[in-house]
């Protein structure tokens, strides 16, 4: 059944050791295009480590990860991002001194072409449509004259690619902020945002890089039930927009409610894989989570 679908990401017998500690032990699973896959397990089971291998932060000791049929291991994080993998962090890692919209624009930049010299000299000009020309709207005569000059010059010489990309980035960033529901906070510093908005901002920033795969690392941590419900909606919306989502989460209600399939890790090993319903009834999983019977390990 899974074979009919197109594999986006393939984790192939990945083992990772830190010193003497085996963090991941021969883990294999696949992620299909358009699905939401949950990755769960008790604290310290190796979920985040697995995640880090998939996003290129760690290099596995053996095994490999294929994304879109291309090898992902050994690639640098920014290259992996360019391949189409974006992620959020378990312990929020925004750029705290940048405003919300700037945070998202860092993401949009990864799809832009302006080089350093391009930003410096802005000589690469592009003809623009009339509606994109600078507006003349000031009531102050002096300023108005200046705006007219700017408009005319843009009409004749066009605008620099830098300017256009900057505007496109800003537009798109605002859209994404709207999508996650914090557009009214666009100009606030990331560090001043409430906790929940920071989590949402991380998602917006990751989406800004136009990924094929969005990896969410405990996005609901610290959320109250109402917020969790909002998140649930958001994740579904994102999936409906055509993204593939990998979700690491503790909150069972959320995981059970939103995912198509679930992979369960314990002690760096995969102990189960299946639909939420299958996982819910799996005795190994129950043992791992509830710790009721020791013999199941």
């Amino acid at each position, binding site marked *: 059944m899974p074979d009919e679908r197109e594999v986006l990401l393939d984790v192939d017998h990945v083992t990772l050791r830190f*010193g*003497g*500690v085996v963090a991941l032990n021969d883990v294999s699973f696949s992620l299909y295009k358009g699905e939401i896959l949950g990755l769960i397990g*008790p*604290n*310290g*089971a190796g979920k985040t480590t697995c995640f880090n291998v998939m996003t290129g932060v760690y290099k596995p000791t053996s095994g490999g990860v294929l994304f879109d049929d291309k090898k992902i291991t050994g690639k640098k994080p920014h290259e992996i991002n360019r391949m189409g993998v974006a992620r959020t962090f378990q312990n929020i890692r925004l750029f*705290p001194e940048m405003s919300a919209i700037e945070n998202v624009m860092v993401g949009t930049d990864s799809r832009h072409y302006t080089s350093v010299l391009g930003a410096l000299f802005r000589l690469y000009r592009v003809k623009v449509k009339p509606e994109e020309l600078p507006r003349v709207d000031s009531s102050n005569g002096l300023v108005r004259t200046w705006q007219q000059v700017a408009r005319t010059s843009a009409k004749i010489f066009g605008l620099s690619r830098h300017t256009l990309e900057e505007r496109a980035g800003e537009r798109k960033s605002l859209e994404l902020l709207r999508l996650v529901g914090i557009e009214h906070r666009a100009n606030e510093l990331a*560090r*001043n945002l*409430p*906790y929940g908005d920071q989590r949402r901002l991380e998602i917006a920033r990751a989406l800004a890089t136009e990924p094929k795969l969005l990896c969410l690392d*405990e996005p*609901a*941590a*610290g*959320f*109250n*039930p109402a917020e969790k419900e909002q998140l649930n909606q958001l994740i579904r919306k994102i999936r409906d927009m055509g993204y593939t989502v990998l979700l690491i989460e*503790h*909150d*069972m*209600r959320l*995981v*059970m409610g939103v995912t198509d399939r679930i992979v369960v890790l314990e*002690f760096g090993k995969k102990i189960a894989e299946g639909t939420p319903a299958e996982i*819910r009834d799996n005795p190994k999983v129950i*043992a*791992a*989570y*509830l*710790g*009721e*019977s*020791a013999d*199941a*390990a």
Partner: protein
Amino acid sequence: MLLELQDVTLKYGRIEALHGISLQVEEGEIVALIGANGAGKTSTMRAVSGLNPLASGKIVFNGEDISTLRADLRVIKGICQSPEGRGVFPGMTVRENLDMGAYTRRDSAGIAADLERVFGLFPRLLERAKQAAGTLSGGEQQMLAVGRALMSRPKLLLLDEPSMGLAPMIIQQIFDIITEINQQGTTVLLVEQNAQQALSRAHRGYVLETGAIVKAGTGQDLLTDPAVKEAYLGVA
């Protein structure tokens, strides 16, 4: 009353992590704090042990206001925390880590006795006494962290996620040891993900959600509370 938190708020930068927590720990109790990741459990611990300054509120220990006392002085008063993420000193041997636990103590006989006791509780640590702590496995590091905390002979032992990353069998053991320590007279404040275990051992428990206490009760009460069940086990 051994420990009392009165309306404690705590901030990281501008973000408020605790919004007015009040809780009490009686002498001889095991009290469990449970809640999801990011709910403020660890922040509460850090407030008690003095790693983060309070934004407002008051902490009273043994009848004394310790709200602004430095962390190392709180240890001398008898509060010892085994930090989350294990927090062992990776470059030191197991033995040295345990010695660090007894850093503020001068009674060498008592220290030796406690060392015996810790090695008795965790024979694994004795086997690895000369090994650098950084090379231990996760479970062993956890044992070391708990053992180290015991070495200071605290009146109040703060345990932050002692079961994290441990196999069920070892979790069982750790909780047995916690119970044993408690029976020997140490008061324990426990932060746990593993709500099942924690609540079944604790005399009382508090449930935290986004930086505030939403429920309090005895361990058994909370354990049977359907809302708690659903939140932590994903089953209604």
